[in-house]
């Protein structure tokens, strides 16, 4: 098939336009990934997007009636694939553990990803690490392709004006917690603090670290990041950490973060917590104000915010494991040390120890923070080299050009004629 001729149906359980209500819940990030893929999919042919399974087969029939063969890209974890659809289906999913579930529980056969994926002609994930995990279970020849969300193009042009340390003012509507205005050192009745949702102005300058995470995602180690920031820069008034929260429950997550800030007080460095949607311009301003983007996760399926900031020439402070191993290098980041620990697949209620995750070396995160501050302040040339290395590495990793070519090639390789055999899914799969 040639470019521009595909009939694509994209399915995701969450609608990116109404995601605010469920933001931060399991699987919400699939909606973001789909949104990032859409421009590329649109450039490859006609793309219809559905957020429930009912309409998929009708769309499929209409396309076939017009003499075309539809392709369903299902942005769902394998146990949530729409089983009743008889479209040619390619699962698209994120994974950050070294093994995939190869057993079922609770009588639900679909929890066995290994068995489920064997019924599909191939699948797409977002890292070489996940490809290895799937092939460990399904064999070295199983058709699976690592395609990160193509986010580079939308951010690369920002890099014409990279971080300078000069003040940049952000305007947004939402909640803003600023450690300098919270009176953390005083006896304040925090129960009465209202997390006001209103127009906010935030001026950032000097050395700024940014982390974007869902605080109820246990993988993110956000507390450890705040702690490392305060322990490293406690009395340095020129250092700021921006923590952008992703979660629909403002009250809950703001309270959680506030509690942690209180436990870290007293400190003179600055922590600002943002909850609310940032318009494109504001987000770009945040990128420009950021010296380094920070990640200290136990594992990542790809980590969109990290990829976006780096595409815009923001070097990183991050570990080079799981998906990040594909793009975090000593040239574009200060590496954080981690080591493996035994853990369970997050969706397994039995919590059987079946895979490895990465345990953070907190000392090394502090060391990376110090080294980053020193580089930004004293070695501007080295900083500029890291910034441009970030942009370059991420082009190879997640530009539309690179991802589009690989996606087309992969779709050409997986044979639609496999459909009848592969579509014969076990009848005991629950919808």
């Amino acid at each position, binding site marked *: 098939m040639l470019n521009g001729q595909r009939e694509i149906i994209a399915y995701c359980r969450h609608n990116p336009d109404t995601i605010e209500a469920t933001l931060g819940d399991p699987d919400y990030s699939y909606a973001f990934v789909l949104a990032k893929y859409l421009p590329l999919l649109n450039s490859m042919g006609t793309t219809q997007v559905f957020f429930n399974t009912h309409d998929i087969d009708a769309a499929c029939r209409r396309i076939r009636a017009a003499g075309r063969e539809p392709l369903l890209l299902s942005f769902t974890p394998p146990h949530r694939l729409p089983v009743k659809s008889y479209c040619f289906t390619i699962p698209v999913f994120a994974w950050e553990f070294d093994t995939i579930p190869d057993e079922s529980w609770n009588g639900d056969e679909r929890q066995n990803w290994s068995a489920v994926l064997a019924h599909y002609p191939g699948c797409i994930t977002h890292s070489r690490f996940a490809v290895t995990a799937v092939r460990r279970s399904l064999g070295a020849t199983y058709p699976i392709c690592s395609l990160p969300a193509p986010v580079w193009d939308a951010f690369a042009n920002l890099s014409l004006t990279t971080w300078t340390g000069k003040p940049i003012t952000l305007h947004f509507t939402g909640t803003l917690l600023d450690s300098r205005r919270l009176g953390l050192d005083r006896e304040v009745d925090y129960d009465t603090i209202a997390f006001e949702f209103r127009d906010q102005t935030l001026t950032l300058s000097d050395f700024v670290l940014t982390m974007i995470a869902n605080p109820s995602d246990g993988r993110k180690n956000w507390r*450890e990041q705040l702690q490392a920031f305060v*322990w490293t820069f406690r009395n340095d008034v020129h250092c700021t950490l921006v923590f952008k929260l992703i979660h629909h429950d403002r009250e809950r997550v703001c309270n959680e973060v506030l509690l942690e800030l209180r436990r870290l007080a007293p400190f003179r460095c600055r922590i600002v917590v943002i909850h609310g949607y940032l318009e494109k311009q504001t987000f770009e301003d945040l990128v420009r104000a950021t010296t380094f983007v920070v990640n200290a996760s136990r594992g990542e399926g790809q980590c969109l915010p990290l990829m976006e900031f780096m595409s815009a020439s923001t070097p990183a402070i991050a570990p080079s494991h799981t998906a990040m191993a594909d793009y975090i290098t000593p040239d574009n980041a200060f590496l954080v040390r981690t080591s493996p*620990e035994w853990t369970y697949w997050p969706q397994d*209620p039995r919590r059987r120890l079946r895979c490895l995750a990465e345990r953070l070396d907190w000392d090394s995160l502090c060391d990376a923070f110090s080294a980053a501050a020193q580089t930004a302040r004293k070695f501007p040339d080295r900083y500029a080299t890291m910034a441009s290395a970030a942009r370059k590495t991420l082009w190879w990793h997640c530009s539309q050009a690179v991802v589009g070519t690989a996606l087309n090639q992969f779709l050409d390789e997986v044979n639609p004629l496999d459909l009848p055999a592969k579509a014969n899914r076990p009848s005991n799969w629950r919808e």
Partner: protein
Amino acid sequence: MRFLLFCPITRVALQNRLGSAEYSYRFVLEGFRPLLEKIGEVIEVENPEHEADKLHDEAKAAGRTCRLICFCPPNLAPVDLRCPTTVVLAWEFDTIPTEPWDDNPKNDWRTVLSSHGQAITLSSHSRRAVEDALGDKCRVSVIPVPLHKSQAREFEPTNRAPGDEIVFRGHMIDSQDLLHSHDLCLPVDTLPIRSDKLSADDVVFSFSEGSEEGACLLGFYDPEAWGVWSRVENPAIILACPLWGTVELHLNAVAYGRNVGREIFLLIDGKRFPLSLTETPTIYKITVSIKSPTNLLRIGPLDIEPLPEAIDNRSMGIGLVSLRIKRIKSLLPRLLQRLPLIPPKQKLDEPRGRLHLSGVVFTSVFNPRDGRKNWDDIVSAFCYALGDRTDATLVLKVTHFSPIAYCKKFFELMAAIGPVRARIVVVNAFLDSGFYRQLIKATNWYVNASRGEGLCLPLMEFMTAGVPAIAPKHTAMEDYIDEASALIVRSNRTPTRWPNDPIKRNGTRWHDIDWKSLVDCFTEAHAIATRDTKRYVEMGSAAASKVASYASEERIQPLLQKHFQEAD
């Protein structure tokens, strides 16, 4: 010279509350006592504020010096006495508390330590923490607990004879006596648990947050303020007291999702009682006649598939609020009526455990409620490294008055790990020096994976007897762990709070263990013990001589005398 010794944990309290907070100061006091008795007269005081000055004045009048030695955190030591006072401090954090919490100036340890002007710490690490806060306002001597010479002579590394049967007074859980189902791991037999608190005829177990002492919940999520949600299909409750005879169970429970109105069963003593729960918490009464004493209750089968539209996608089936147990006194003969809810105590009070060890034996000794000890890492790393080997045994010698304290963690860990061919035994032996000596003799490696140590007396006791170690080289262990005598576990610092900080600030640091490095140490230790006898013997001798030279009475006695002379 007269020594007044004070420890907030008295000998009697130690027997009853083994494993409670600050209990280890008691072992420190007892460790120092024989040496202090050699140097002078020793009197233990329970209330130093009232007793110390009188005993001091008396000694002074007789022309002798007198010193109060407090084996406790500084905030519990008296200040402003006429009797000179020395705190013996065990501390595993890299800073000391410097805030007067709860308006008590003594909670700022600087107040106490600068008033005394000197102190003894058990490690160089603690001395640094004190000196960082006080500079020259407090003179600190590092003096570890002296170890007796006889221990070092008795066990040479080559004399070890694993395979002997060790008899002890206490309880034991053996991984070979566990039943693994698809979602839980349970003991084959009724656990021999006793609890004095629960000998009444009417007992209520609450399942809300903070009331975990009474029952061990398996297959549930973490308790919340109202109670606890189930996690697995057939969750279980192990009560802190076995049930027998005719009892009335009042179960306050609620169903979630598809479990509302569904028929589920309560299983006890092989009998099934149908239940149908509503979506609001309700009390369900069940009368049971139990023939053989049991403390195991199971509930199920639950539908645990998350509701498709629910934001909370946990596998909740039912929620438990509380369980009340009433003994029925009805048609039973008068004699039986007088029996308590709990079966006769002597059956459980004098348990005899028999432990037969073989293969390479790894031992760790700890208080399971002590969060520093990180024993889940020890169990999981052992199973990951050696779980397939039949010639590897991990002995967890725990000291706690209530087995409920470690049952939950142990059974949930073993369920998570699944069946293994290697063996794990949890031994809760009451204070029993004979058993302890035999255990040291049967042990090939001592394992420590702590977040921080004030000293770690068991590790030193095993090492001095020629047992090499697997341990991190941090906090107090810096002073005596080296490559010659131990396989060193990697670790890194991480923030935490002082245990006594009411505000729970992240004001200090302890250590995280590198789990993979612990796995590698287990693998290497097993290989050394089975295939490299020469290196094993060398490490054992190095361990014995290292600790002997560090904590022998010959070394400690002059250190103590010097410290007191300079203080007087």
